[in-house]
Structure formats: structure tokens, C-alpha cells
């Protein structure tokens, strides 16, 4: 949750470039009550990006992806290949993502 302000800034910064932040959210939004609570929090924290509902598949997405701790981050390039995992340092996050986005733009021009 501590990462949300930084994540929001990334979405804003790269809104015109080929980048998407996608969450897998484990807050139990499959009940009306859970969903309402989530909306309240999301509004408060300005969460503007899309998230999968972790419990909407069986097994859960986080189980399929062998997630052992939260948050867990996967960096997936424009071809769908995992390029980094669990880079958490904010400056390093921006560096690797910028590199990946630049590569995606180059390929799109080809």
C-alpha cells in the first residue's frame, strides 16, 4: 500500500506511452460489502488503474503465480516476456521500465 503514490505517478507520467500498471488485488471484492469497501479506499488513495480480482480464478491467480509475499512485482515486456521480478527501489523501477517502454516504442515503429 505504501507504493500507491509512486505507482500513481508512474501511470500519470507514462499515460501517452505503451505502459500499463495492472494489479492483482486480494481484498476480497467478490462480495458487495468488500467491493464497496474497496471503492472507498481506492477513492481515498486515488487508485486509477485496473486490477484483476485475485479470487476470480480457481486456483487463485496469486497461487498460480506462486506469490509468497505481498507486494510482488512482475515486469512484463510488450511481447509478454518476464524481464524483471521484484525490483522495488523507486529509481530502479523507473529505470528498468523506461528501458522496456523505449524498446516497445522502437519495435512499434518497425
Amino acid at each position, binding site marked *: 500500500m505504501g507504493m500507491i503514490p509512486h505507482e500513481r505517478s508512474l501511470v500519470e507520467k507514462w499515460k501517452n506511452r505503451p505502459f500499463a500498471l495492472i*494489479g492483482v488485488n*486480494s481484498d476480497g471484492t467478490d462480495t458487495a460489502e468488500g467491493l464497496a469497501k474497496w471503492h472507498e479506499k481506492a477513492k481515498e488513495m486515488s487508485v486509477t488503474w485496473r486490477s484483476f480480482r485475485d479470487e476470480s480464478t480457481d486456483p487463485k491467480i496469486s497461487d498460480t503465480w506462486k506469490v509468497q509475499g505481498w507486494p510482488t512485482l512482475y515486469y512484463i515486456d510488450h511481447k*509478454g516476456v518476464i524481464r524483471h521480478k521484484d525490483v522495488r527501489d523507486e529509481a530502479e523501477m523507473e529505470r528498468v521500465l523506461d528501458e522496456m517502454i523505449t524498446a516497445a516504442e522502437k519495435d*512499434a515503429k518497425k
Partner: protein
Amino acid sequence: MPRPVLAALLLLCSPALVFAQQGEAKPAATQQDPESAYKDLVKAYNKAFADWRAEAGKKVKEAQAAGQPLPAIAMTPPSREFVNSAQDLAKQYAGTDDAVRFLVFICKTATKEVNAVKKAIDTLLEAHVESAAIGDALGHLEGAAMGFGAKDKVMTLLDEVVARNKTENCVAQALLVRGALRLQTATTDEDRALAKADLDRVATVTKDEDLQKQAKDALFEIEHLQVGCTAPDIAAKDVEGVDFKLSDYRGKVVLLDFWGFW
């Protein structure tokens, strides 16, 4: 991970996860058999753990409310006196299969008792490699290997079990743990290939479905979730209940974030 999250996870952890409930312990007899000695030990530990969790949870909440750093208690679950008792009991039953579970107890409960953990692993290596009772113990050594800098010792123990133990499930469990450890510490493709070979072998040594499934899950991680792998697609509902796929975003860089407010 921010520290409060770490503490919260630790506090969420129920002792039932650490130790399966052992039922009612019998009143201590004068001449205790190893079975009830173990039950008593686990019961006392579970109680101490529950007390610690309640107390630490309260203190953490107070500190958070006051905007103060985490209190030390949050990071210190009970351990020393229980590790000491387990050491005594392991000595008392030295050389028998009964000693194995006390040695494992040490590896599971120790928080700062590095030497006790290392000694327990040495004893398993010296006296219990061929024991049919060592299988379940091995799964608990992964944490000890990583958390206490005892990886080399644990690897030696696993190598010996694979080579010398005659019980199929013990060998399978040793392979599972060795594969997992190799994967966790892998830096090259060769390391990953060794990890994969261990996990592939599990299905050839045991018919136990649970062990086979564990190996299959671990293999999925090696083959699909490493840097360089094509990410498994996700087809699921978003928070609002609308279906979408991860692959809808091909062409864009995706930062996939497993998260929650909690």
C-alpha cells in the same frame, strides 16, 4: 516490504500453521514416553506463541496509532526456552527416530538460536540420514537453510538422504527441497537445470500424489515464471467483475502488481 506489513504477516501466522494441532496432551507422567513429551512441548509452545501474538498485536496497534516505530516485541516470537527443551529431549532419545522430531522442532521454532539449528542439522546428518522418519523433517529445513546461513549443511544432508535413504517418500521429499533450494539460489541456467532435474525425478521415485503435485507446481515456477519466460496468461475478472486478459495488453509494457489494501 514496509516493516509494518512484515510484522502484520508474522502476527497473522497462526501457531496451527507452525504446528498441526496435536490434540490434548496427557498430564505429564513421571516416566514420559517421547510421544507425550513431544505433545507437551508443542502445546506449551503453541500457548506461548498465541500469548505473544496477542501481546505483540496490541503493542503494534498502539505504536501505529501513536505514529511510532514498531515495538521490539513484534519481531521476537518465543523460542529460546523451547529450543532448549527440544535439545534436551533430542539428547535423551539420541539415535532413535524419536529424536528426529525434536531436532526438527528446533529448526522450526528457532528465531536467533543459530548454533542450535546448525547442531540439529549436524545431528540429523550424523545419525538419521537413513531413517524413514526423516522425510517430513526435510520440508522444514528450507527456512533454516536460508534464514540461518546453513545452506551448505542442509544441501549436504539432502545429498546424503537422496543417496542413502531407502524410503521412497524420504528421497522424494529430499529431492523436492533440494530442487526448491537450488531454484531459490540459482544464478545461471545450469543451476536452474539442476533444480529442474531434481523436481523431474520426484515423479520417478514416488507414487505419492501430494508429493508429485508439489513437484509439478515447483516445475511450473521454473518453466513459466522466471525472467526470460513468456508470462502465463491470466484470464479473470477485474475488481468490478468484468472479464479481461493479461494478453489484451500485448504491445504495452505491463507492471503486474500483486497487492491489497488490507
